[in-house]
């Protein structure tokens, strides 16, 4: 049995006054205090852009050193946008293996040290460099290509996809760590400039800075009642490019990863009380709901249109604001998602509390080339 016994966040923002190591340290200290622990046996860092944006790798040793943990096992895990969730997976495997009893996962990203053109470049490196990045295809344009096809094929309107953004913004209002704590309506979205037609800037999550950490421990080391269990954990991959997929409108990685996590947890989609999905783009939310069994193919957007994704809805998603409004500090985001599921299951989500015992988080790397799914259960 592997338990989550603490979590910590920095506020997500444009942290011009803080470095990568300072952001990491802040969330690690918060998570350790939350878990009532002084020092973990191992540190797993989730980060995508340290090398390109900060010119810094070797983040395990750097952050361990800066937190005063020198001596412990530490290294970074990279799986593009899903880096934080992949780092959690590694920590889970380490604790489940019995070789490590206490571990901390720290997702961290400091993106705003560079100008927008470099940021677009850095965030596109989860795509294929030789066949996408080098000919000017950006990550956002890939999702715009998918969105146009999806809307034409299934009859979804911009207003439908926009409901995902509206839900995330509504849920972020009560989250003190969110970057945008303001509700929006459909007019705001429809009148906003295009990021990449048909996706407006309000269909896309903001790239920003932040760090989240989660503390895991084995059954042996568990000395508190305040814990949630990790009952499902899975990573799956798909082709790097959407052009090499049989069906570019289906997220096979998300489907495979969710199916394996359900099997491990002995759960079905209808057992999941809340789903922290990866709304980096509104279109991605619709496709994930389909891939994970909450809607049929081409019908994910109907859950948003029919208002079934809210806190009191059939399947609450992005309950603390999602990537759209809580914010998307790339490599840190997966850890925010899992920490928010733990926060919910511990009954600590305040105004956004969902009453349930089982929650799921899924992170997507690149245009669906990696999917990481975790299912957590209240003890």
């Amino acid at each position: 049995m592997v338990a989550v016994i603490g979590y910590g966040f920095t506020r997500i923002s444009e942290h011009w006054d803080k470095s990568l190591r300072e952001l990491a340290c802040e969330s690690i200290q918060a998570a350790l205090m939350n878990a009532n622990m002084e020092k973990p046996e191992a540190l797993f860092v989730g980060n995508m852009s340290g090398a390109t944006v900060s010119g810094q790798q070797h983040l395990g040793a750097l952050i361990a050193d800066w937190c005063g943990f020198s001596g412990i096992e530490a290294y970074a895990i990279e799986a593009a946008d899903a880096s934080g969730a992949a780092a959690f997976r590694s920590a889970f495997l380490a604790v489940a293996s019995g070789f490590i009893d206490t571990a901390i996962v720290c997702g961290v990203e400091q993106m705003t040290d560079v100008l927008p053109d470099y940021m677009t470049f850095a965030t596109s490196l989860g795509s294929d460099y030789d066949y996408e990045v080098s000919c000017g295809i950006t990550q956002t344009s890939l999702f715009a290509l998918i969105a146009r096809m999806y809307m034409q094929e299934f009859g979804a309107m911009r207003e439908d996809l926009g409901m995902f953004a509206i839900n995330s913004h509504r849920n972020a209002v009560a989250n003190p760590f969110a970057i945008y704590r303001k509700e929006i309506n459909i007019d705001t979205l429809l009148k906003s400039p295009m990021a990449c037609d048909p996706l407006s800037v309000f269909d896309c999550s903001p790239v920003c800075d932040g760090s989240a950490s989660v503390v895991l421990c084995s059954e042996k080391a568990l000395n508190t009642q305040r814990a949630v269990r990790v009952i499902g954990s899975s990573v799956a991959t798909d082709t790097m490019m959407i052009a090499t997929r049989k069906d570019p409108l289906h997220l096979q990685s998300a489907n495979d990863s969710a199916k394996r996590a359900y099997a491990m947890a002995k759960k079905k989609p209808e057992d999941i009380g809340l789903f922290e999905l990866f709304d980096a783009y509104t279109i991605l939310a619709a496709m994930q709901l389909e891939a994970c069994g909450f809607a049929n193919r081409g019908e994910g957007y109907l859950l948003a249109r029919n208002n079934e994704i809210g806190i009191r809805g059939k399947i609450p998603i992005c309950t603390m604001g999602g990537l759209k409004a809580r914010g998307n500090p790339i490599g840190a985001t997966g850890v925010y998602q899992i920490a928010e599921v733990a926060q919910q299951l511990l009954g600590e989500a305040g105004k956004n509390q969902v009453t349930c015992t089982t929650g799921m988080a899924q992170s997507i790397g690149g245009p669906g080339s990696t999917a990481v799914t975790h299912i957590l259960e209240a003890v």
Partner: protein
Amino acid sequence: MEISRNWRLRHQRYRLLASKCACGTIHFPPRTICHACGKKSMKQFNLSGIGKILSFAPVTSAPLGFEDYIPYFVALIRLDEGVLIEAQLADCDNPETGMRVEMVTRKWREQGERGMIVYGYKFRPLLVKS
């Protein structure tokens, strides 16, 4: 500068070199291991470069190195051989899904005054031969 990296990809970029597996699956870019059947019985050939637009999107926020080229369209194209390719469009201000297009060799980017000029495939509306 990436000179050798660009040179290495010249056959894919200038003549759409692809591979066809004994199982019938076509791959662009060409591969040595088939992702459909797992075998390694590949033959290389050049794609026709003619197909139709499945989807398109305008890039207005340029990634590094493409500042001088925005706005431009990228598209997902189904070539007549059945394989999909992601590429930029050329000579086309009003793309539509279903539009017939053909491959042309165009400049992708310049790497500064002393750097390389990188060429590769783009797709333009199919010219009707008179």
